[in-house]
């Protein structure tokens, strides 16, 4: 079989890349350009609220170069996890950016839009039938988790992407995707080994992060050859080494030897990494092992309230030595003051300089000479969050702890106003596996002309 090339412009659509790297990639005659646009990494807010964690202007800048280059060279572009999380609102947001661009540039092409948001009634039925299982260590799923989630998406594998390409799409805009899927779909469609194609996708989905020095804002090229694949950066400042590529394989994964995905497991137990040139690494031996049943991963987020925070510092050593007790007393005072109101709230104190970064995992929770304190109130509405934060802040500011000498105030505020409304707060509510029989039903492909 001929060599097959995939150009990965950047780690996340909107993270940017030097044009020179991308054009160097185009010179290598790639078969497709693929880019991952999303992640659960920024936390549950973006999935829950249905907004992107990347900026619209930055996404537009990247797409102008990517789609422009693809149209000129007549090669398909695949975008995975549109809008950051792949719910319908994310997909629509990204589609609008592409439509604006097409209008500005006088572009005309076929675009496939693949939805990945799931209907709640359908999920409730599947839960009832026992088709949804938790992904350890996520908790068991209840019907209420489904009903209270604002957005629920499933991670598609390569099948819907293959259908979109078969339908002749120039650009494939996909909802939530298994990250390597957009990089591997066309190669698998053309008969290349799925284990190698998916492993190559796993490395390319982070752009040039697997190089040295690594960067998520730079391009990389992957080439499938007879007995493996080759990865290389496209910026002469970087090079891929055996260690940098092998090390990237284990990034963000539970177990480097077995990477589960839609429909099967990528087994890396026999994977070998070899130096191919001064800047390129060859990988071989990766295998895709299909599972008996086809599972896709579900992700969902639900709203848990509204947040108000106050940021302050403390430099008094007498207060610092008693900080845990003071926080407990402030909590009690807040609870006591509003006991008759029946407010439901969650009040947290993040103490930087003690255990602000690691919380309960901190092995050495010793205080520094000054502490940063964030008072964090979450309640069922913004007004109550404001009330709790404000009261906790004023109580802590004037709290009379034993041995207090500084009577003017206990906290140093860098800002006026001291309290900030942070708005809606979400939590992950679903992280489960759904057994599916027909991926194309779950992820419908719609072809549009722009």
């Amino acid at each position, binding site marked *: 079989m001929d060599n097959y090339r995939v150009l990965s412009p950047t780690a996340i659509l909107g993270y940017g890349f030097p044009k020179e790297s991308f054009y160097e990639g185009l010179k290598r005659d790639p078969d497709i350009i693929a880019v991952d646009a999303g992640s659960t990494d920024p936390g549950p807010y973006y999935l829950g609220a249905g907004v992107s964690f990347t900026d619209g202007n930055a996404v537009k800048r990247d797409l102008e170069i990517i789609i422009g280059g693809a149209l000129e060279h007549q090669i398909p572009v695949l975008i995975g996890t549109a809008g950051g999380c792949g719910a319908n609102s994310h997909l629509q947001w990204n589609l609008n950016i592409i439509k604006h661009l097409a209008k500005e540039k006088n572009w005309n092409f076929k675009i496939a839009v693949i939805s990945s948001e799931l209907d709640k009634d359908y999920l409730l039925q599947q839960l009832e039938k026992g088709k949804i299982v938790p992904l350890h*260590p*996520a908790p068991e799923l209840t019907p209420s988790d489904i009903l209270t989630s604002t957005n629920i998406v499933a991670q598609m594998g390569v099948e819907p992407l293959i259908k979109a390409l078969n339908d002749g799409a120039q650009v494939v805009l996909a909802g939530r995707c298994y990250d390597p899927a957009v990089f591997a779909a066309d190669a698998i469609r053309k008969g290349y080994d799925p284990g190698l194609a998916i492993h190559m996708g796993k490395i390319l989905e982070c752009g040039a992060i697997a190089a040295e020095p690594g960067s998520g804002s730079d391009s990389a090229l992957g080439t499938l050859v007879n007995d493996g694949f080759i990865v290389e950066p496209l910026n002469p400042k970087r090079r891929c080494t055996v260690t940098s590529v092998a090390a990237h394989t*284990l990034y963000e*994964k539970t*177990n480097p030897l077995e990477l589960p995905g839609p429909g099967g497991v990528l087994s890396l137990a026999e994977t070998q990494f070899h130096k191919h040139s001064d800047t390129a690494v060859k990988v071989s031996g990766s295998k895709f092992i299909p599972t008996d049943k086809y599972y896709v991963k579900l992700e969902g987020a639900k709203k848990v309230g509204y947040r108000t925070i106050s940021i302050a510092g403390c430099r008094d050593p007498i207060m610092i030595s008693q900080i845990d007790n003071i926080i407990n007393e402030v909590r009690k005072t807040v609870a006591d003051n509003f006991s008759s109101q029946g407010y439901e709230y969650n009040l947290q104190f993040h103490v930087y300089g003690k255990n602000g*970064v690691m919380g309960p*995992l901190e092995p050495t929770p010793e205080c520094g000479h000054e502490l940063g304190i964030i008072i964090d109130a979450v309640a069922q509405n913004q007004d109550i969050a404001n009330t709790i934060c404000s009261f906790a802040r004023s109580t802590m500011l004037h709290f009379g702890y034993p041995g207090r000498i500084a009577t003017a105030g206990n906290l140093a505020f860098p800002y006026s106003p001291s309290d900030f409304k942070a708005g809606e707060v979400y939590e992950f509510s679903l*992280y489960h596996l759904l057994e599916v029989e027909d991926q194309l039903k779950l992820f419908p492909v719609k072809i549009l002309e722009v």
Partner: protein
Amino acid sequence: MKEVPITELAKVIRSKNSGPYELTLDIIFKDQEGYRLAMQSNIINEDTIANLYKINKEQIINIVPFPQALAIKATIVRTRSSGALGETDVYGAQQHAPLLKLKVPYYEK
């Protein structure tokens, strides 16, 4: 028996979420010799991780060596799901620090 700080043997020591419910810890060694010393001493074991992170062994999902990358990986259950109330580190990218204090024991040749 002597000891060498793990920071002298390792090229990368990092933490990161592996999904919203897990925290994964990677130690990647500079060379074959460092990896060999760490594996031989069995320094990255369940007791070490449980003590460093003040967790029960049940919260350790796995500890897996990946010789191709000269790496040892440990994955633990997150204290709370990423971004849940009380969160301190949404990406889980600053939970590696306790590992930096490890010392790898070895016998002089």
